[in-house]
């Protein structure tokens, strides 16, 4: 998708007599869509594997009927979209889809956005030739957010495909419907593909794949987004509003650093309350997949009655006497720039713990690598076929990093290496070539050295590093059993002639053999069997060409983060592996680039959505109310190294930060007037906010905002230190990590996000801990509920950090793992 369109990888194809250019190896359907040629298809999803459920995309390619979603383009291919036979097939397929489909379009939540309706009209189905008795299909609520009306389902399997290929939960699948068998006579009279499709359709229905009535998944709701009919909906949206009544506001999701494109869909609250309300969040699901926080965490707006002048004046006073300003990364680039300008003029300290750690890491990396930003965005990661993840709790930290990791396994026949101290039962299910290394806390450096050892071009490595790596190697002899083909000569008497003959046969025999194997001490340190790992790794490496590495927050908050940053740069320099980083919070990357951050807050502190002596808050609980992210316009810098615009979905009646700045330092009229002032020496562009696009092109090109420029400088010679066994933590360890769908106070405020604040533990560990525990961090302690996370494994527990009032960042300090003592309460 993100590959550059060069002449070499383009082929010329002809569709209905016109010549088009398409990427080599692309499916016909995608090539046609990229060139604005319409081929009907219901079941196909752009970034997932073809399902072949609907068979509508039948086309004729070089005289043969093929499915456009499943056939790849070839140089000079001649494609005809409609032939009489294909038209007959399509018409029959649409008639079959309409058999027994409830005629309740009037109340259906799809309200006209229905693909079944569209294709029925497109293919001019005005009569029905087929019939079969209907089966009773129950309406079910699969989870706290998913609503499934089986009666409306056309079993296109788009939901199951996206859940498996993109999301990685594989929480839903097809199951038996118990429908009646088709009338035999149809087999002769019906078009062939339509009959086959009907035969399959009549047998199946969608259900949770764990065999219960409830899905065991991350509640991302992507299945509801891709559903072409009204079968899958968010529970809160069922019969709440017609789609056409809702106004779509293009925005950028403000929960995590992924910065996904979303639309807030809003209208008045009710007949009596005319103030606007967001009803749902939708996305361009062919090009971007949301997580549960993005889709359901939308109602975090700060509703206030009007401007509170007294509070505003108090805020001015507070800013004037402030020694430091504490804020977090749920903030736009413009606001970050305002704070930076304020710092430059008034000399306050800016404190933002998550961005600070990332900033230090990034700048060390930048110096060593000779470029201001990491090499890959996550779309490029998705295009690789070998992906490594280090230092990120993939399931929790960033949904899009996880989707990329999963998608590589499913779509590119890829392989994955997952290094993390917290055991996870989901990651291994992403693919059969996923190797999970559950190492000890603090061994991240060893993992990076292992990657150097596995992938590096040994010529390029600095001598000390090479020697250091060789120091881990040892040879040992091992007895292995081997199958050897042995020749055996026998004399046989021919029964007919009575002559004696000698026959040589090959007989397999097991032979014990002494072999010398190379042991890799690094693998053993990380807790894996060296030989077994070498064998799996060899299998994983088969036919792999492009390599990527995702690194996460664990590394930025590592005791030896600087050494790690240099190691990462060294990996990029000496191996084909390219790195993508996950910024810890929403706009950590933007803040890290724009602001000069300080370590500690001192003296009188103004907190912006954080604790402080004077609190500006978009949560409605501060001294001065601020607009929440769905009430303000501005730009966010996401982990794909893009500056993306977001618009205000709801009105905010109070003061903005810009109003404060107007009084304090002087500021332009609007917040978005700051957009063009973002620092160009950090890679930003002088673009006006109103000129920034926010959408996708038909071929999947991301046309949102602009990409940050990766500024190159001269790389320094990288010197890395060996890793230190002393930094390994053992004992009772708590990990700072949010549950899925929780990222900050705003996701917490949303009414459809139910994950609570507390200590998450594996089922076994939770049983040991009881219902409530007091976690003693030494200086301070916190008492929290223990919550079971079925997908966690092992002894390490995870303490959520999304509630800023609990100051979990303060408890952990500059680390993400802490050794603690726990007491039952």
């Amino acid at each position: 998708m993100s590959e550059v369109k060069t002449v070499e990888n383009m082929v010329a194809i002809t569709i209905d007599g016109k010549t088009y250019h398409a990427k080599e190896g692309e499916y016909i359907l995608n090539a046609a869509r990229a060139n604005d040629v319409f081929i009907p298809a219901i079941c196909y999803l752009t970034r997932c594997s073809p399902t072949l459920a609907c068979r509508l995309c039948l086309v004729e390619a070089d005289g043969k009927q093929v499915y456009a979603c499943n056939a790849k383009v070839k140089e000079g291919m001649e494609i005809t979209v409609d032939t009489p036979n294909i038209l007959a097939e399509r018409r029959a397929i649409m008639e079959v889809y309409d058999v027994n489909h409830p005629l309740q379009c009037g109340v259906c939540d799809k309200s006209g956005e229905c693909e079944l309706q569209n294709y029925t009209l497109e293919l001019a189905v005005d009569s029905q030739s087929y019939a079969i008795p209907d089966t009773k299909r129950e309406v079910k609520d699969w989870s706290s957010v998913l609503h499934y009306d089986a009666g409306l389902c056309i079993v296109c399997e788009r939901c199951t495909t996206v859940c498996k290929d993109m999301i990685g939960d594989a929480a839903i699948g097809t199951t038996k419907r118990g429908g009646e068998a088709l009338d035999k006579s149809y087999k002769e009279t019906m078009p062939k593909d339509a009959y086959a499709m009907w035969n399959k359709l009549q047998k199946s229905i969608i259900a949770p794949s764990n065999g219960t009535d409830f899905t065991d998944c991350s509640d991302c709701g992507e299945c509801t987004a891709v559903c072409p009919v009204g079968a899958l909906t968010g529970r809160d949206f069922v019969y709440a509003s017609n789609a056409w009544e809702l106004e779509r506001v293009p925005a950028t999701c403000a929960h995590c650093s992924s910065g996904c494109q979303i639309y807030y869909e809003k209208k008045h609250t009710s007949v009596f309350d005319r103030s606007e309300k967001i009803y749902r969040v939708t996305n361009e699901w062919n090009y971007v997949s949301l997580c549960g926080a993005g889709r359901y965490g939308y109602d975090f707006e700060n509703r206030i009655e009007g401007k509170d002048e007294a509070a505003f004046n108090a805020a001015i006073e507070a800013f004037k006497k402030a020694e430091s300003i504490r804020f977090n990364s749920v903030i736009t680039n413009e606001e970050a720039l305002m704070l930076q300008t304020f710092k430059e003029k008034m000399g306050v300290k800016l404190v933002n713990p998550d961005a600070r750690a990332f900033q230090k890491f990034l700048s060390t990396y930048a110096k060593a690598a000779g470029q201001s930003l990491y090499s890959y965005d996550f779309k490029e990661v998705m295009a690789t076929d070998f992906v490594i993840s280090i230092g990120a709790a993939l399931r929790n930290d960033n949904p899009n990093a996880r989707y990329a990791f999963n998608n590589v396994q499913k779509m590119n026949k890829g392989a994955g290496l997952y290094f993390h101290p917290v055991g996870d039962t989901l990651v291994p299910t992403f693919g059969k070539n996923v190797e999970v290394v559950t190492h000890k806390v603090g061994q991240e450096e060893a993992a990076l050295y292992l990657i150097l050892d596995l992938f590096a071009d040994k010529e390029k490595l600095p001598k000390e590093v090479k020697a250091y790596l060789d120091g881990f190697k040892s040879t040992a002899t091992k007895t292995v059993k081997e199958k050897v083909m042995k020749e055996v000569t026998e004399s046989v008497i021919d029964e007919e002639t009575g002559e004696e003959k000698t026959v040589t046969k090959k007989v397999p025999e097991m032979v014990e053999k002494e072999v010398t194997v190379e042991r890799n001490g690094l693998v053993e340190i990380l807790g894996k069997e060296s030989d077994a790992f070498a064998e799996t790794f060899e299998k994983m490496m088969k036919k792999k060409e492009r390599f990527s590495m995702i690194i996460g927050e664990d590394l930025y908050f590592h005791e030896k983060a600087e050494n790690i940053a240099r190691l990462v740069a060294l990996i990029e320099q000496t191996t084909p592996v390219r790195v993508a980083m996950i910024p810890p919070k929403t706009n950590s990357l933007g803040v890290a680039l724009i602001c000069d951050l300080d370590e500690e807050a001192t003296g009188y502190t103004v907190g912006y959505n954080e604790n402080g002596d004077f609190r500006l808050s978009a949560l409605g609980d501060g001294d001065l109310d601020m607009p929440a992210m769905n009430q303000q316009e501005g730009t966010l810098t996401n982990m794909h190294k893009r500056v993306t615009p977001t618009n205000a979905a709801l009105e905010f009646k109070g003061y903005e930060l810009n109003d404060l700045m107007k009084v304090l330092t002087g500021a332009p009229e609007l917040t978005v007037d700051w957009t063009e002032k973002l620092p160009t020496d950090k890679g930003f562009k002088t673009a006006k906010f109103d000129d920034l696009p926010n959408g996708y092109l038909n071929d999947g090109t991301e046309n949102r905002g602009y990409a940050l420029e990766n500024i190159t400088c001269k790389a320094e010679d990288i010197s890395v230190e060996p890793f230190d066994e002393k930094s390994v933590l053992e004992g009772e360890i708590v990990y700072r990590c949010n549950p899925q769908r929780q990222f900050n106070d705003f996701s917490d405020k949303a009414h459809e996000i139910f994950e609570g604040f507390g200590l998450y533990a594996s089922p076994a560990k939770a049983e040991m801990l009881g219902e409530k525990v007091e976690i003693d961090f030494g200086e301070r302690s916190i008492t929290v509920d223990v919550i079971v996370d079925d997908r966690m494994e092992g002894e390490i527990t995870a303490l959520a950090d999304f509630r800023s009032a609990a100051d979990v960042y303060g408890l952990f300090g500059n680390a993400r793992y802490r050794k603690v003592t726990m007491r039952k309460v």
Partner: protein
Amino acid sequence: MGLEQFKNRNVGQQNYVMLDLEHTPQTGMGKFRQVVRRTFKAELFVGLWVTMREMINALFRGQMHTVKYPLEKLPISPRYRAIHEMLRLLESGHYRCIGCGLCEKICISNCITMDTRYDENQRKEVSEYTINFGRCIFCGYCAEVCPELAIVHGPRYETASEQRASFSLFEDMLTPIDKLNLQQEYDGFGAVTPNADENIKKTPLAY
């Protein structure tokens, strides 16, 4: 096809009687003669007699033509578009509205608003419905678009009120349940055509 039918512009029944009228006198003498003739012909009494006759017919023979509004009202055409009514299903008494929102969408003066919800019986319930009659222009689009003939125009044309903008809620417009037997089927815009049956194509059903 001939065009004769289009050329005959005399729509309806014609019972015109040509009056035998004399020519208007042109000269002064002619005018004088007409005045003298009319004065002495006692035509005045012809007129008085007509009045007298009609009075007697009206008062004593029951041939009164005046409608005593507001005690009496003229019947109006089913196509007349006055204040809306919400009809009920005759069999169950449940309101016909399914909450599809088409009337809300088509309303050109944006005066219809509705709230719907998912009810306990897994149906779409219309929880609130209102028409702002201060803005309604009685165009009839809502009745025409309604797939269920649930919202129709009724004959209530007296809309004078103390306030210019008066609202109507669902209950105000809904046929009272005890008067369900009096509910009239609507023949105005959007009603089923008399030959609807002929235009229907049957779907094969396996049961």
